[in-house]
């Protein structure tokens, strides 16, 4: 029998009975949830989806030199000077805390883990619960080829801030060429192509996964309950790939903003600042095209790592070491070299925002249809402080949040921000976090 499709098919129809008349069971993903409901649409008529992403940077801010104390406005100071043109797209969150409930402050880890999972890590390396981007991707990620995309600009595949647990960390792409190949290589289907023809190979690949799924069921029957829980993610992973294949069998919805850039060359990767900056620019462009081409709706971008290994060529000290070992300037009163790195990091964030703001989509821009949560892991790196970790939201999530606000948490748990983001993205959750980090209170001040 031929595997060539004779008519446009839905995912379910394409799979049902097309392989030797046998049933191929698959759960269809939650489709078209969280599409823009504000009346804006693509030229083809499809509503514009809302995307979510994290942008991580390590080493926080230089105290007193990043943002002014007046919470009636966002008053970016010298360290955040590059962000000033983008203030209207940003909400800045200050004085939100990460109470550890007596647990040790695991340096450069407790902060981001608390912020992202709602629970302080009990020991070094632990990630006690899924990060909230994972919970969001569980809801909105099924409608696209990739449930989420993870990118790290330092060249280190261990630099990830997205995980389902300690032993299940989402590995980031660290090379622009590898990211490009994964996104826009042979398996990419251009949503704007006039000639869509599903590849019959996809059905054979789906049949392979059906056999694997049967093997998985048998395997699961032979192991204990605790190990079965561990196998859950493997199960989810099979289904994600099945879903990916199924989506490739359908004619994709046209996406006006989708413009595939040309492939990058094989460039250096590493933690030298110029290399990190260059790779951040390249991978940002790929990321926004992946969003515009509807390849994913969730992303994690790590500019540097939590123990920032950024360094200047010819300089013995990394960004992180400087925050601890550099003397305060005699007259300025702060660590000038560490401050210099912080400024470069904020410049990278400004470039990131600018890239989203430059892509037209519907009657607005990609940034309007995106919610970015940018955050660090400490407030003051020198002292490893996890209270008042800088957090920003960027974009309006489909015109559903106000921007330009400087919100003071007055010591409330930082989990309020993650909870707000999850609810905005459709995660059915009203209480999040453990102990003093538990909250049911979103940041309603930013909601439209």
């Amino acid at each position, binding site marked *: 029998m031929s595997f060539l499709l004779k008519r446009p098919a839905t995912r379910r129809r394409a799979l049902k009975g097309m392989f030797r008349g046998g049933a191929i069971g698959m759960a269809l993903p939650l489709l078209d949830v969280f599409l823009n409901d504000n009346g804006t649409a693509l030229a083809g008529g499809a509503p514009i989806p809302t995307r979510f992403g994290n942008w991580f940077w390590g080493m926080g801010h230089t105290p007193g030199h990043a943002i002014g104390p007046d919470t009636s406005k966002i008053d970016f100071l010298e360290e955040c000077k590059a962000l000033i043109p983008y203030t209207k797209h940003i909400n800045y969150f200050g004085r939100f805390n990460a109470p550890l409930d007596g647990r040790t402050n695991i*340096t450069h880890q407790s902060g981001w883990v608390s912020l992202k999972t709602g629970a302080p890590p009990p020991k070094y390396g632990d990630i006690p*619960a899924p990060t909230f981007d994972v919970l969001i991707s569980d809801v909105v990620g099924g409608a696209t080829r990739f449930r989420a995309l993870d990118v790290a600009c330092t060249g280190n595949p261990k630099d990830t801030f997205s995980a389902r647990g300690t032993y299940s960390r989402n590995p980031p792409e660290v090379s622009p060429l590898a990211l490009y190949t994964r996104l826009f290589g042979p398996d990419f289907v251009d949503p704007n192509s006039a000639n869509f023809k599903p590849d*019959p190979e996809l059905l054979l690949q789906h049949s392979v996964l059906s056999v694997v799924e049967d093997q998985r069921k048998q*395997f699961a029957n032979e192991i204990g309950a605790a190990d079965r829980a561990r196998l859950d993610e493997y199960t989810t*992973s099979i289904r994600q790939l099945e879903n990916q294949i199924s989506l490739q069998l359908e004619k994709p919805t046209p996406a006006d903003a989708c413009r595939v850039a040309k492939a990058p060359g094989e460039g250096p990767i590493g933690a030298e600042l110029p290399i990190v900056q260059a790779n951040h620019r390249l991978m940002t462009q790929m990321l926004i095209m992946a969003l515009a081409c509807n390849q994913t709706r969730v992303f994690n971008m790590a500019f540097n790592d939590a123990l920032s290994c950024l360094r200047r*060529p010819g300089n013995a000290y990394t960004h992180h070491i400087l925050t601890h070992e550099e003397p*305060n300037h005699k007259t300025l009163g702060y660590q000038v070299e560490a401050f210099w790195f912080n400024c470069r990091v904020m410049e990278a964030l400004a470039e990131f925002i600018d890239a989203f703001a430059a892509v037209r989509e519907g009657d607005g821009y990609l940034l309007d249809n995106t919610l970015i949560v940018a955050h660090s892991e400490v407030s003051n790196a020198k002292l490893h402080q996890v209270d008042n970790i800088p957090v920003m939201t960027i974009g309006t999530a489909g015109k559903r949040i106000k921007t330009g606000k400087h919100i003071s948490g007055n010591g409330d748990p930082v989990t309020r921000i993650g909870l707000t983001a999850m609810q905005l993205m459709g995660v059915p959750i009203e209480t999040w976090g453990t102990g003093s980090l538990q909250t049911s209170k979103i940041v309603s001040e930013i909601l439209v």
Partner: protein
Amino acid sequence: MSTFASISRLAIGAAILIGVTGCGPQEPASTGGPATIRRLSEAQYRNTIADIFGPQIVVSGRFDSIEREEGLLAVGASQAAVTAVGFERYHALARAVAAQVIAPVNRGTLVPCTPAATDGADDSCAKIFFSRAGRLLYRRALRDTELAALVGVAHAGAESRADFYNGLSYGLQALLESPDFLFMRDATVANGSRLSPFSKATRLSLLLWNSTPDDDLLKAAEDGSLDTKAGLKAAVDRMMASPHFNRGMRAFFTDMLTFDDFATLEKDAALYPAFSLAAANDAREQTLRTLIDFLITQNGDYRDLFTTRATHITRSLGMVYRIPVAIPGGWSRYEFPEGDNHVGIQSHLSFVALHSHPGKSSPTLRGKAVREVLLCQKVPAPPGTVNFDQFNDPESPAKTARERLAVHAVDAACAGCHKLTDPVGLALENFDTAGQSRTEENGVKIDTRGEIDGIPFSNGTELGKALHDNPATAACIINRFASYGLGRTVTSGEKPWVAYLEKTFTSNGYRFTDLVRRIALSEAFYAVSAPAKTSTKSAGAAHYEGKS
């Protein structure tokens, strides 16, 4: 030569290098530990494909990382999951491997039958292929239902593509993506008290070869001989005489010495121009060659690794060590002269560079590595509230690392841990972050005095002697190797067994091969205890409450 192509033509009956003597203390009873499910590591995946299908099959791609637990990735593998990205990668790898196996250049040797016609399905030939390949990949014989499913998918693929071999590739892909291949499950017998013969074969093969069991080992599992003392001894002898044995031991030391960190090791090129990528790769190889040559080939005393001047070098390394190397592009034996600071593997570039910052050395990181990697001691994590004010004093006259680190001594929050690490790491300050010898820092002579566990020393050479004599050194290698083989930490019920290993290791002159053989032949190594009761609810599931 691939295992699958020739079904193991390894040299059976090769000379036994070292025998465990029949006399001496008897192995005590052990209650064993919990059964585990280990995820295949990247190296194990690569070795398995090479062993089964031959080294010509290229495995090109990335793998999910494994978290290091209790000093070992092998222990972390027992907790490792497969992420969506990881599975996507396994899928791509499986497609690529399967395509190569059925390629015209390989099918003649790797497909053990000739199909009736190449332009369609041949279920009989497919069944032969899958039963042989599947047995090696799953480390057990395939069930009839499993075979039928594979033959079915191959049949459909062959009809669709009008190509028998293409059809085979889909079944092979399924094998390579299955949990039975990607995870190694400890199956048990005798009411769950010991490993099944197939799991025993797998544990043994991972320990000695870091790969899948070969045909002979699976036969020993199938015919029951692996469960006899003589059969187990024959298998261990054969495997230790195989060329794969060195590969297995290299895998252990790569894990123990945290050499996976070489993947992201960087040194500032402007400050350290001699530290090239070639030098970094050779540094890793230098230490592994030294270890294998010294411990396996020469059957040396493990403790002497910390005092030996003998090593292997290349021209790239010669540039770092500032010694002339005549042979371009190759390895040669070398002995650092008396008086040179390079004594013991802790002075190797692989150690001092790996445990440093990109632009400067770190006595703290080096001291921590000596404690944790070589002695299996734990150094507490740094406190979150450190006062760096004294460190940040712009008027500080400190010129050397020792002077800078002295600040920690006056802060009680720092002193507790830094007194464990810094006096050890300072002994290696004669090597900069790129491993090059130096005698001064910022114009001040470097002071390498220190102490470890009450033993004072004046330099790195004497630190090596202190490590040689430290009882923790031998205890550490035993503990690490046992945990590496078990895929988990040693349980309290296994402590008498570990004590027995320590005793015999000592009495046999600290010979590493003897330790390997004794563990591989131990009943305790294959003993299993009842699993501890654990919650079936994942941490994440209990963590948040949904609206619906």
